[in-house]
């Protein structure tokens, strides 16, 4: 990174490490290093925390601490009757960051929006190939198929033209990859022959601007003085990269940082009792599941799947695997998402009835496999242990299961196979708070052989979610998704296992920190009090 003018934070006595002395410097002990600072190039949450959530804005954003969409760089928008055209009226007077090497000559306008999307979607765009040019989220959200064009109507109006109606479009535009970057900065860097600097020295409109990144050690930001929604309450924001959760906890206790993510489950009780800390908690926007292969006998029979679901003691899993930091899941979407159907009846734990159902379905002496992920994920802290509990539950109803596991990349790949043998433990964390992001991605017919690990293509369900995708009336969409959840439950392609609870310990002096349901860590709106 090029050298920049420095902000000297030097102060006080040498070893008085207490950060409280620096009244408005908030230190966040982050769990890892960002891959870079352009959120459209990467997919990791750690990267988004350091880039899109601090440095950039999107046309629309998610309300802080919630999943509702609120206007951001777009003040308002209209959708054409056929659902194919979205017209955004941009906010006036939005300033980009002024950095050591760039001074914006104008406010944010339609050119910046067009640049940000064309770079990702148009293979002939001069910036498309810069910095590796892989836009996995843009691709993953089917934007290349969906987006016909992004047109500048006038300086403050942009139109998105779609190839087909897509109700979750607005929610998609709130996602990190849709961050708006400065076209003027990009033009200057291209003219200077250093286009890659756009990604290394990011210029955004966000609440903080980058001061310096010391690789794998520290990221320093300062508050954007002209931020359109008002300057942040804290003056400086520092990410102290600390990978080990036990060490993060020690740093938090020692006052070397104010906020830490991903505590060890074993430390939760101590954190709760620590007078210097507040332990925030919220249900995560995720679901952990066990997906049967509905293409293979006898799992092609919904009765068999349901019987196996009834044999699983989910309460024991919540206690044994989540150590209480989870809630039993009955639907494929978490309760924090709109259209969650609370009327769904879960398959109650009843080994005797399960055994009877299996016999009724003509299944005896069944032997199968349970796939356990090799990694810890937000929706499943210990897949191996979970698999062992399920194995024991199934043994009680006469089903013999062998636990298998592979290296994570292999696991993801092999579990997609249509002829896969056995049921797979996996899960999902929502991207945009839209039910479509769970139901269509994980259970739609398009996902068979891919992200639909149950290989389940059930026409009545598919019809409901496809209809909901093109319906713009929220009430009607809600009703369609509620019905889809009932169909799902009756067909039981998965055993829905749990939604995890996210814990976030913060020091007492931190005010107004809200847990982001999407798993992000956002510091605009947070303050420090003595």
């Amino acid at each position, binding site marked *: 990174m090029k*050298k920049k003018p*420095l*902000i*000297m*934070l*030097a*102060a006080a*006595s*040498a*070893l008085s*490490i207490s950060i409280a002395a620096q009244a408005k*410097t908030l*230190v966040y002990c982050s769990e*890892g*290093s960002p*891959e*870079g600072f352009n959120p459209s*190039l990467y*997919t990791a949450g750690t990267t988004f925390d350091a880039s899109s959530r601090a440095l950039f804005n999107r046309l629309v954003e998610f309300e802080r601490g919630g999943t509702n969409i609120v206007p951001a760089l777009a003040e308002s928008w209209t959708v054409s009757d056929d659902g194919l055209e979205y017209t955004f009226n941009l906010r006036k007077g939005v300033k980009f960051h002024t950095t050591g090497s760039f001074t914006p000559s104008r406010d944010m306008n339609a050119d910046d929006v067009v640049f940000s999307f064309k770079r990702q979607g148009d293979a002939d765009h001069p910036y498309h190939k810069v*910095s*590796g040019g*892989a836009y*996995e989220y843009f*691709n*993953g959200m089917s934007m290349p198929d969906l987006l016909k064009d992004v047109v500048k109507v006038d300086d403050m109006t942009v139109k998105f033209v779609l190839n087909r109606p897509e109700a979750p479009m607005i929610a998609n535009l709130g996602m990190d990859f849709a961050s708006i970057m400065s076209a003027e900065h990009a033009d200057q860097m291209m003219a200077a022959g250093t286009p890659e600097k756009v990604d290394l020295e990011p210029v955004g409109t966000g609440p903080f601007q980058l001061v*310096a990144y*010391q*690789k*794998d*050690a*520290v990221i*320093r930001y300062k508050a954007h003085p002209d931020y359109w929604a008002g300057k942040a309450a804290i003056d400086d924001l*520092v990410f*102290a*990269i*600390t*990978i*080990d959760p*036990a*060490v993060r906890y*020690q*740093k938090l*206790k*020692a006052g*070397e940082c104010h906020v830490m993510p991903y505590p060890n489950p074993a430390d939760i009780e101590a954190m709760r009792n620590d007078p210097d800390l507040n332990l925030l908690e919220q249900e995560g926007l995720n679901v952990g599941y066990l997906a049967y292969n509905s293409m293979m006998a006898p799992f092609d029979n919904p009765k068999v799947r349901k019987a196996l679901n009834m044999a699983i003691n989910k309460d024991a899993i919540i206690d044994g695997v989540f150590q209480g930091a989870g809630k039993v899941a009955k639907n494929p979407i978490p309760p924090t998402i709109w259209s969650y159907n609370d009327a769904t009846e879960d398959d109650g734990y009843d080994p005797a009835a399960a055994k009877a159902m299996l016999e009724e379905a003509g299944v005896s002496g069944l032997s199968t496999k349970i796939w356990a992920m090799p990694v810890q994920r937000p929706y499943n802290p210990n897949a191996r242990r979970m698999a062992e509990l399920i194995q024991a539950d199934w043994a009680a109803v006469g089903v013999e299961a062998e636990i298998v596991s*592979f*290296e*994570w*990349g*292999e696991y*993801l*790949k092999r579990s*997609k196979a249509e002829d896969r043998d056995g049921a797979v433990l*996996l*899960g*999902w*964390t929502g991207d945009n708070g839209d039910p479509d992001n769970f139901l269509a*991605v994980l259970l739609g017919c398009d996902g068979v052989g*891919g*992200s639909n690990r149950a290989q389940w293509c059930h026409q009545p369900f598919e019809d409901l979610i496809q209809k909901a995708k093109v319906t713009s009336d929220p009430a009607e969409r809600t009703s369609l998704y509620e019905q889809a959840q009932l169909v799902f439950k009756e067909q039981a392609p998965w055993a829905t296992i749990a939604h995890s609870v996210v814990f976030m310990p913060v020091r007492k002096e931190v005010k107004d920190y809200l847990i982001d349901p999407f798993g992000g860590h956002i510091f605009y709106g947070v303050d420090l009090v003595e």
Partner: protein
Amino acid sequence: MFRFILTRLGLVIPTFVGITLLTFGMIRLVPGDPIELLAGERGVTPERHAQLRAEYGFDKPVLEQYWNYISGVLQGDLGKSITTKQPVVEEFFTLFPATVELSVFAIFLAVAIGLPAGIIAAVRRGSVFDHTVMGTALTGYSMPIFWWALLLIIFFSGILGWTPVSGRISLLYFFEPVTGFMLIDSLLSGQEGAFRSAVSHLILPAIVLSTIPLAVIARQTRSAMLEVLNEDYVRTAKAKGLSPGRVITVHALRNALIPVITVIGLQVGVLFSGAVLTESIFSWPGIGKWLIDSISRRDYPSVQGGILLIATTVILVNLLVDLVYGFINPRIRHTR
């Protein structure tokens, strides 16, 4: 002597080729597809998968990939990281000074304590001191690094509050790196207290990293000294009426040092492997942590390049040790 140096240098080349082959082959033998890992649960379509493989050159025959890699290496180009898209060489040398600083400090600690401890233990063979040193050394040698590190953090940083928990310098100090060595940069910065802060951050990780080499050096010094102390020339020196101090330092130690120096050279490799864990725990921004991340992401170019550069360092240090060894002991440079 010249011939000896040439022979040693000649051996470096096949070693080097062997390392490139090993790293290139092994990371590919380890199961795991970098593209699947990049995409996570979301996954990629088979078309996109093929497209990305082509972009990274993974679709070419392995031999061709190796050839391209080696041609790059010979021109000093180790490729770009799949994760960060930055040149591997650049990333490595940004982080390398942190590892070197930690390792140098650790080896210094290990020699400064291990060598005298080993000598005294040998001289006072069978004494309480000897048993204590050897017992401690054995414990140090068998201690799991991450556990030992956490124990020190909880005690010295958590309970006593003497040392900072992790990092390289207090966040209060901020200056652009000049050399990448925090001790030097903090002095150059002219900021009051920066140097002290850097030293205080270095203490715990250096103790942790030096533990195993210290134990090995102490044990090696003791056994080498014991062997030499029984030699005729030592008995002769004693019989001549020389002071015990002179007998030990001049007559015994100089001869005992030869195997000890070899061990110190070999410990450089051990230090790098120890640095992987130590750096992760102390959030020390060095190549150890970077390499672990790269391996878990199957970032082929970073793993290949990183291991190659580390191996080169180890080879160079051992070459140096061999040369020093040749200087000290003429018998070695005449052996063919």
